[in-house]
């Protein structure tokens, strides 16, 4: 956090000054570790074993916050009898289909849900939901009804609490040490600190970043900490929670109002061909009528979006133009697109403030993809490597590409910087902050807002009068934004559309005060339901700037947070089931019976994340769905049963509970199960995406070391905003690798000398930094050396500093839930000296492949046996 979010770290330091204990779990001793109370070096890719160990410690020592757990989580909920755990299937859950390497999650559901085993149909479409996580949108997951069976004594053998306990029973401190390399005493010190600092009087927060998400099991990493935080009662409370430290100014915003293939604004899913032929079909997969919570408003959220986009053309009679939306047929994510580019299936590409030739995993594939295009538009502030790959990319040097042969037509359009346009960023805590414009952009530089607006205007002019149905999609679109005297779009008019307004009735034209005012009949519109309220009262709430020093610590009058300006999500859980704060020092939001003339109301420091007039004692009539179905003590209002999920009965495609699997490339055999890597990881078998052999496969000794990639304080991602800035470039001028003195000795590496790091994809060179901050770990009876690789440099000619990109080393293997790459753990070799240049580099890599016997099958085996008779294929061959 000190490395990549230094200014955020001031609050950690302040907490430390006031007595908080700071623990840093990271493979390397970083600038964060330097000021932590405890640093825990961990083997990359083993965090689920660590987190599972903490869960086991909590449960086996009964350290859970029992009152919170029983009331607010699904610990008491009974599961179906046909659910079988990984502990009984050697690393697989029930429902695994060896043909498709995917799960049918039917048996993972709550008792009484779905069709119990024996009676269930064999229609493969049943598995649809669990097969494609990207179709879920962000809604979590549906339950067909809020009705669940519960045993609040937590004794029922099939209640979540007991299932969880059995699932993690083998994640003992000794096992944690064996898997992660963290000695038992160090691990127990963490367990004790976390449990001692949780409960009524104290809370613990977990903070993570892409060190958790960039794995083939990344989603389950986060689930691991969610389980801990729910068991310890740390969710929805001040000083608690799970903080995702996002790396870019508005990366949160770009998922909320997404530029992601599988999402529409507000985490609504993109419609899928064949499944969503009508609005009814579409809404039915987001919410079931019997579900509790606010996702039951899905029809309203969808209709308001369509109304915002299609205006008067969107009417109840035509399903609000739902039919005009394009449909998905599978994974259309970045990596799939890149492969299609290489294979000549994609003609055009817009790169907008993004430098994949340096910054994306398997960067070589991205460059080859760019070379396979007909036309490319790059919009950036600086002349990034993704715009110049055709003349100075690494493949020109190796002879794989020749400038004169590359057909790609490249348009470089200069972009405006953050001070040259007005607009909003959503920061890491969902807070939307407005930037005012300071100056005009120079020369041809334009904001994206103007570029896309202008593009839309010209496209529509060109198609005007067309009767082709596919052009109606564009021509019926609302595109009438306010422009100033220079023709520049006023961002606030776009924000107003996002907020939404009353379309009819006496308030027609007024801004919606929030998403609860949205109607599903076309009388209101709003481009992103979770942002509704940001333009409440016709005022840009995100531009509010009452100085922090004039406010309390919540600073509720600075900017605006979605949803409904709530700063801490699920904050009803900061009070006990009766609505009283768990303790005075942790009071945040509570029920005050005195308010509203004795009717009572939720109040506190924050906007309550709950219906304000619903008393804690409220109990819905049996079978009630929607918000009305939430009881007065159901704080998790977006969940289909109102509870925090220790166990996810649906919504995840790789299992209802986090389970340790090794990374796709690992020199370590999974000590917990015969199944080595995640059985559902998304593998990509291609000649240009080879994998190193993992433990047990022939040739595994050729790539004996583990590497991980990361960022440094002094740089920003692929360097587009730092390698062109001399004051930053001079602070970290060269690509380097961090190695332990032991590895340096083993490989003859000199500090400040050069090293060549090789994988089955390619080899890169880096300066060597020998440091005690990297420690070899004892794992499963051998010593594992880890190599640290920052990834800010790229091969090009325009930046102040250049160098090989660590991303060239990575192969592509994805978390099947979200299609995010495993870029935080890979295997490699390291040798002293610079890498070969020109065609000799290709021969160098080929020699490694040949020595390791690498083929497209290497490392890509999936579990092909039925549960109960599981043997990993690599073992067959070994």
């Amino acid at each position, binding site marked *: 956090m000190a490395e990549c979010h230094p200014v*955020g770290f*001031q609050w950690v330091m302040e907490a430390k000054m006031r007595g908080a204990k700071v623990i840093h779990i990271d493979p390397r001793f970083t600038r964060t570790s330097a000021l932590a109370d405890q640093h825990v070096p961990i083997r990359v890719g083993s965090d689920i074993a660590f987190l599972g160990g903490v869960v086991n410690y909590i449960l086996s020592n009964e350290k859970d916050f029992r009152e919170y757990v029983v009331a607010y989580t699904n610990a008491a909920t009974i599961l179906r009898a046909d659910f079988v755990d990984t502990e009984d299937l050697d690393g697989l859950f029930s429902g695994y289909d060896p043909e498709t390497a995917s799960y049918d999650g039917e048996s993972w559901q709550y008792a009484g849900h779905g069709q119990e085993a024996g009676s269930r149909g064999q229609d493969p479409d049943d598995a649809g939901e669990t097969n494609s996580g990207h179709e879920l949108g962000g809604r979590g997951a549906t339950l067909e009804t809020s009705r669940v069976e519960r045993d609040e004594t937590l004794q029922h053998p099939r209640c979540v609490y007991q299932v969880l306990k059995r699932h993690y029973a083998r994640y003992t401190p000794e096992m944690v040490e064996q898997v992660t390399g963290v000695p038992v005493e160090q691990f127990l010190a963490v367990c004790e600190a976390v449990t001692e600092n949780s409960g009524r009087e104290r809370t613990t927060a977990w903070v993570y970043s892409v060190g958790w998400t960039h794995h083939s099991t990344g989603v389950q990493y986060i689930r691991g900490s969610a389980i801990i935080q729910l068991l310890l009662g740390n969710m929805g409370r001040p000083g608690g929670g799970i903080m995702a430290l*996002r*790396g*870019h*100014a*508005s990366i949160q*915003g*770009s998922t909320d109002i*997404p*530029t992601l293939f599988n999402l529409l604004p507000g985490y609504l899913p993109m419609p899928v061909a064949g499944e969503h032929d009508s609005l009814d079909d579409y809404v039915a997969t987001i919410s079931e009528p019997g579900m509790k919570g606010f996702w039951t408003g899905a029809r309203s959220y969808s209709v308001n979006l369509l109304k915002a986009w299609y205006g008067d053309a969107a009417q109840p009679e035509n399903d609000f133009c739902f039919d005009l939306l394009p449909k998905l047929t599978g994974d259309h994510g*970045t990596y799939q697109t890149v492969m*299609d580019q290489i294979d000549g299936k994609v003609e*055009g*590409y*817009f*790169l*907008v403030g993004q430098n994949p030739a340096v910054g994306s*995993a398997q960067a070589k594939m991205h460059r080859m993809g760019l070379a396979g295009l*007909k036309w490319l*538009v790059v919009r950036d502030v600086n002349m990034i490597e993704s715009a110049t790959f055709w*003349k100075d990319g690494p493949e020109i040097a190796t002879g794989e590409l020749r400038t004169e042969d590359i057909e790609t*037509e*490249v*348009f*470089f359009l*200069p972009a405006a910087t*953050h001070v040259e*346009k007005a607009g909003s*960023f*959503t*920061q*890491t805590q969902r*807070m939307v902050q*407005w*930037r005012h414009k*300071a*100056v*005009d952009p120079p*020369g*041809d530089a334009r904001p*994206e807002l103007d570029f896309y607006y202008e*593009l*839309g205007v*010209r*496209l529509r002019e060109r198609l005007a009068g067309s009767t082709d149905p596919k052009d109606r999609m*564009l021509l019926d679109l609302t595109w009438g934004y306010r422009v100033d005297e220079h023709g520049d779009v006023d*961002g606030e008019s776009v*924000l107003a559309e*996002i907020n939404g307004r009353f379309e009819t009735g006496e308030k027609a034209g007024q801004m919606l005060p929030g998403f609860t005012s949205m109607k599903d009949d076309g009388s209101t519109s709003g481009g992103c339901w979770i942002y509704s309220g940001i333009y409440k009262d016709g005022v840009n709430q995100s531009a509010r700037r009452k*100085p922090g020093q004039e406010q309390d610590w919540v600073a509720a009058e*600075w900017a605006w947070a979605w949803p409904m300006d709530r700063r801490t999500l699920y904050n009803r859980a900061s009070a006990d089931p009766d609505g009283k704060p768990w303790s005075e020092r942790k009071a945040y939001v509570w029920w005050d019976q005195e308010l509203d003339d004795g009717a009572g109301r939720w109040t506190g420091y924050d906007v309550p994340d709950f219906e304000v007039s619903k008393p804690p004692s409220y109990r819905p009539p049996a079978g009630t769905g929607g918000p009305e179905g939430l009881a007065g003590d159901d704080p998790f209002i977006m969940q289909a049963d109102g509870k925090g999920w220790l166990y996810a009965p649906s919504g995840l495609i790789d299992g209802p509970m986090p389970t340790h699997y090794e990374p796709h490339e690992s020199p370590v055999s999974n000590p917990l199960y015969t199944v080595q890597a995640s059985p559902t990881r998304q593998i990509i078998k291609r000649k240009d995406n080879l994998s190193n052999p993992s433990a047990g496969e022939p040739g595994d000794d050729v790539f004996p070391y583990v590497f991980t990639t990361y960022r440094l304080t*002094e740089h*920003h991602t692929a360097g587009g*905003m*730092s390698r062109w*800035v*001399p*004051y*930053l470039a001079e602070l970290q001028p060269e690509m380097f690798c961090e190695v332990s003195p032991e590895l340096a000795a083993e490989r003859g590496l000199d500090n400040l000398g050069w090293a060549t790091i090789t994988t089955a994809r390619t080899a890169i060179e880096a300066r060597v930094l020998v440091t005690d901050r990297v420690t070899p770990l004892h794992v499963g009876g051998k010593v594992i050396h880890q190599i640290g690789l920052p990834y800010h440099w790229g091969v090009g000619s325009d930046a102040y500093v250049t160098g090989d990109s660590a991303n060239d080393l990575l192969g592509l293997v994805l978390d099947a839930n979200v299609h995010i790459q495993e870029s935080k753990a890979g295997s490699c070799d390291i040798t002293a000296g610079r890498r070969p240049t020109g065609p000799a580099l290709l021969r160098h890599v080929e020699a490694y492949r040949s020595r390791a016997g690498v083929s497209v099958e290497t490392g890509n085996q999936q579990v092909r046996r039925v549960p109960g008779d599981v043997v990993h294929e690599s073992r067959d061959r070994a």
Partner: protein
Amino acid sequence: MGLRDAFLGWPVVRQVTGTDPLGRGAAAQSAHTAALRPRTATADRVVQSICPYCAVGCGQRVFVKDEKVVQIEGDPDSPVSRGRLCPKGSASEQFVNGDRRVTTVRYRRARGTEWEDLPLERAMDMIVDRMLDTRERTWQSEVEGKKVNRTLGFASLGGATLDNEENYLIKKLFTALGAIQVENQARI
């Protein structure tokens, strides 16, 4: 300034006649030094902004003089950052006024070996041509008998320093064009 004042303002005279006989302080101060004002004080206006680097969302104050950014520093009013900035945020002014920043459209034709100049208007029209051409030729009404209404012929990958309003327009426009391969750093 009269002759007398000029004489009295002469450092050595100030040194001999003033309170600083060793000439190391008040007497040594030059007129230029005495007139120094911080450019934050002489700026024409101050604009409140947000740092473009990580997602902490630190407040920035942008000082503008003669329609040029002359200083960017932390905004003490921000409850997020309390006026502080990291090295990247502190380098924002150099990022904005960067001397290698490209501010004109550059064009590389197919199989070309060098950049060429291209007027912005012309570039916009050429891009529109290519989008419509590709869309027309790669249009899919149905796939395996299922309605899809789309093109896989062009795609987009955006960085995560785009504004919400910009992302909104990108998604809206591309969806209406049937271009579903719209992606972002958020998946990377």
